[in-house]
Structure formats: structure tokens, C-alpha cells
């Protein structure tokens, strides 16, 4: 679920549908009744009211509860459209081609596909991102944080009421080598604004005993990863904490539901570090159910490249998402040179 900053493809983005780029965007003035702005990207229109986000396209429309929409939009923005497909729900979403993005209605829904009513348009990633960022900023009211677990934030309902820009513009944490090394991502503490989460109050906060010889103080290094995760102020938002070339350890704390059904374009590994997450997997292209995966502390599993997955975590849990950030992988999978499952046994 995490993404390397430099994953943008060096070569021209793949365009398997041969779609032209849309360059029409608009932000309309605030609605007199609701106070929210409406947005247009290509032929898609976006409007919110008290309870819902409404999406329209030529000959079609769809609506999501606005909390569902905002949580999903927040991840799509924070993750730079992510790896592969981000399904906001069973109808609407985006697919990342690393520099260009497809936005769709029904393209990963079997009924729309069979009926021939799926609608897809393609955009430059930075241009669509600009609209998405304006939308999350305008549609998020004061007191509501789409990154937070529902029990830890206010409600998103009602007419426009202030904003929460600090919450929706958080920068994702990406260590260059390892958290805590000199010059790298710092540790979290009460003093730096990261108190221990209420559900991790029992997690030990001790630090490793480090005995460095003179001259090696900056090279002999360790930190308490579990304590670091216990202080995460967001959910379902992996941050890179250690890097071996393109191998990215992206731990995160999870509570409630992964706000998107993620259809990764490469295998994605999950290492359950604490507690439990239940994963539902569905066919990436059609949404047909494939499996339920219950992960308990110490469990390891991979999400194959041809599924979409969504996690459910009641007690806040610690999950290590392990990604391979190589930009070569999507093309290797598309061309059949890489398997959907990394190991056959």
C-alpha cells in the first residue's frame, strides 16, 4: 500500500486502452445551499451535499456516502494515485500509469463491463491531482480528519463548515534508509506531537540498548519500530521506514476499514505485526469474490497481482506492508514476464 517517491516511469506511460488525454478541468463557485464547490475533470463531474458525494459522467451517475468518498480520496491524494487501481467503491476509481492516470466509472465492475456502460477517461497525473487536492480541501470540514479512525474524529456531514487543511495536507513519511538514522526520518514522541494511540497504550516504549564504539555512533543504530507505530496519528497510511534498494518496508497502523479496494498491479506482501486484520479479496478486473484471509500476529501473506483487497481491523493493529518499488514491474506483469504470484510451490 505504499509507494516510492521515484516510481514514476522513466519511459512513456503505458496506455493499453489507447485513450487520449483530457485537459479540461473546472472548479465552480460554492453552491448557495451547501457551500461546497463542484468540480469537473474531463467529462466527470463531482458534487457534494450533506451526506453524499455525487459523480456524473455522460449517460451515467453514481453516489457514495461522503465519508467513504473522502477517506478514499484522501488515500488517492496522499499516495499519488498509488500502485495500480484504487477502487473508491465497486464503481468509481483511478488506475495509475505513473505519469498518467485513468479515472473510471464501472471499469472494474462486472455488470458495467457486460452492459458496455463503463466509462473511462485519461489524465495527466499532476493535473488530475491538482483537482483532487482542491476537492479534498474544500469538501473536508473543520473537525473531520479523513485519515483518522471513525472513533477518533468528528463527522463529515452537513453543509460547508470550515476546513481542516493541516489534516488533509499531511506529508507521507518516507525514510531514505532507516527511521532514526542521522539526517533521516525522526522518531515519534510526545514532544514531537505523536502521543501513543489509545489502543496501543500497553505497547512498551523502551528503546534498544545501543553500545557504539567511539567513531561509530552514527552507524550503529536501532529503534523501537513497535513504539514508532504505536504513535502513528493516521490509519491505513503506510510510511517507508527502511529501504534495501527498491525493497520498501512500509509499516502502518490499521483501524476500521481500508478505505479503498486496492487492485495492485504487482504482488503486495502483508506482515501482520500485531492483533488481527481480515482481508477480503476479489478479482481485480470484475470484483468477483475470491477469498477471505485472516491474519494474526506473525502471519505473512501476499496479495496476488490479479486481486483487489480490502482490510478490516477492529482493534487497531500494526501491519507491515512490503512493497517492491521497481517501475519495471507493471510492464513485466502486463507482458506476461512476471507472475501474479511471486512463488509457486
Amino acid at each position, binding site marked *: 500500500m505504499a509507494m516510492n517517491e521515484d516510481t514514476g516511469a522513466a519511459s512513456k506511460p503505458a496506455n493499453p486502452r489507447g485513450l487520449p488525454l483530457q485537459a479540461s478541468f473546472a472548479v465552480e463557485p460554492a453552491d448557495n445551499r451547501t457551500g461546497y464547490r463542484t468540480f469537473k475533470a474531463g467529462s466527470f463531474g463531482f458534487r457534494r451535499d450533506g451526506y453524499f458525494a455525487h459523480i456524473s459522467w455522460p449517460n451515467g451517475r453514481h453516489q457514495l456516502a461522503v465519508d467513504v468518498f473522502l477517506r478514499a480520496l484522501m488515500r488517492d491524494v496522499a499516495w499519488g494515485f498509488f500502485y495500480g487501481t484504487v477502487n473508491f467503491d465497486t464503481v468509481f476509481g483511478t488506475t495509475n500509469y505513473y505519469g498518467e492516470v485513468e479515472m473510471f466509472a464501472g471499469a472494474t465492475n462486472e455488470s458495467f463491463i457486460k452492459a458496455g456502460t463503463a466509462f473511462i477517461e485519461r489524465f495527466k497525473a499532476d493535473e488530475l491531482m491538482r483537482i483532487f487536492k482542491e476537492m479534498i480541501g474544500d469538501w473536508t470540514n473543520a473537525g473531520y480528519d479523513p485519515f483518522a479512525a471513525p472513533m477518533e474524529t468528528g463527522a463529515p456531514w452537513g453543509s460547508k463548515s470550515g476546513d481542516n487543511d493541516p489534516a488533509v495536507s499531511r506529508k507521507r513519511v518516507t525514510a531514505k534508509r*532507516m527511521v532514526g538514522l542521522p539526517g533521516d526520518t525522526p522518531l515519534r514522541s510526545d514532544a514531537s506531537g505523536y502521543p501513543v494511540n489509545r489502543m496501543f497504550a500497553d505497547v512498551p516504549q523502551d528503546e534498544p540498548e545501543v553500545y557504539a564504539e567511539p567513531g561509530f555512533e552514527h552507524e550503529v543504530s536501532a529503534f523501537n519500530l513497535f513504539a514508532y507505530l504505536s504513535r502513528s496519528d493516521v490509519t491505513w497510511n503506510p510510511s517507508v521506514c527502511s529501504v534495501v534498494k527498491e525493497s520498501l518496508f512500509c509499516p502502518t497502523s490499521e483501524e476500521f476499514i481500508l478505505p479503498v479496494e486496492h487492485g495492485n498491479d504487482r504482488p503486495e506482501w502483508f506482515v501482520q505485526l500485531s492483533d488481527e486484520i481480515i482481508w477480503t479479496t476479489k478479482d481485480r478486473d470484475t470484483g468477483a469474490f475470491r477469498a477471505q484471509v485472516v491474519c494474526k500476529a506473525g502471519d505473512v501473506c501476499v496479495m496476488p497481482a490479479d486481486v483487489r483487497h480490502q482490510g478490516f481491523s477492529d482493534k487497531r493493529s500494526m501491519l507491515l506492508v512490503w512493497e517492491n518499488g521497481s517501475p519495471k514491474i507493471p510492464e513485466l506483469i502486463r507482458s506476461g514476464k512476471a507472475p501474479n504470484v*511471486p512463488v509457486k510451490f
Partner: protein
Amino acid sequence: MSGYSTQFGSIDAYERGTVSVIADDPKNYLFSNMFDVAARSAPYERVAVAKNFEYVIEVARAEGVSGWFTCAHDEFVTCLDYPCEVHLVKLDDPDAAVDPESEGAHALAALPPGKKMGRIVLRRGHMAILPVGAAYRFEAAAPATLMIQTIDGPVTSHQWAAFCQSK
């Protein structure tokens, strides 16, 4: 409301989840448990539990004193349950110990010349860097579980059928 209790596992106390298929093959999920793997492994056998192209996550049962390892790139070790010490030595000539273009950890027959860098005592949840250019070894008084972020190499053991859920 009562307090929350965070569940961690250990080599001697863990509960394994499961894959329940609707229309799939459980083998596709390569489902395993790190404590289960450590419990059935020989000391310091480095067993791959996750693989993504050349990259792997290894699990090792720490018990007693390991041999020395080195690597041509950084690696990271996380202690998942009981204490384990990491001893680090800066090699005078790392390229003589391991091909600088090679990947994955290499076992050393003997410790080459170098300077003592220090040691780290890891407990549950602690992560340490095993920096490029260093040799390292582990020491644990009692069986413990280590998770290592590295690349598939000469000491990586592949035993997927032995511990992954197959049906």
C-alpha cells in the same frame, strides 16, 4: 470502557490465521506465520517467508551465537519476541569479503580484519540496521524470532511447501 490489549506473538506462543477460499487457490497467498517458521528452523537458518523478485524477507531462529555474516548492501533486522544481541565489525576491506556487486547475506568462514563498531541489544519490536561494509553476528540466550529485510542470496533458504498453507 476497559483497556485495550495488544496481541503480539512469540516463538513459543502464537496463533495462526488462515486463508478461506471462495474461488481461489490458497497457495496463491503464500500464507505462513513467522513464529511457526522460527519454531521449526535450525538456529540461524535464514528462511524466506516473502519474496518479491530478487527481494526477500527472511525469518531466523536466534539461539546461541551465530556465525559471522556480511553483505554488499544494507540489511535490516527486527526482533519479534525475545532479546537478541547484534555485534557489528567494520571490515577493513569489505570487497575482499564479499563481491560488491553481489546480493543477499553471505556467511563468513572467519571474521576478516576490521574494527569493532559496537553492539545492540534488541527486544520485541526493535529494528536495527546491518550496514553495508560491516560484518555482523547474532547472540541470543534463549530462542527468539528475527525478521530480516534483505535480498535473496547464498544463505537464503527456500522451503515454501513446508510452512505455507496449501489447502
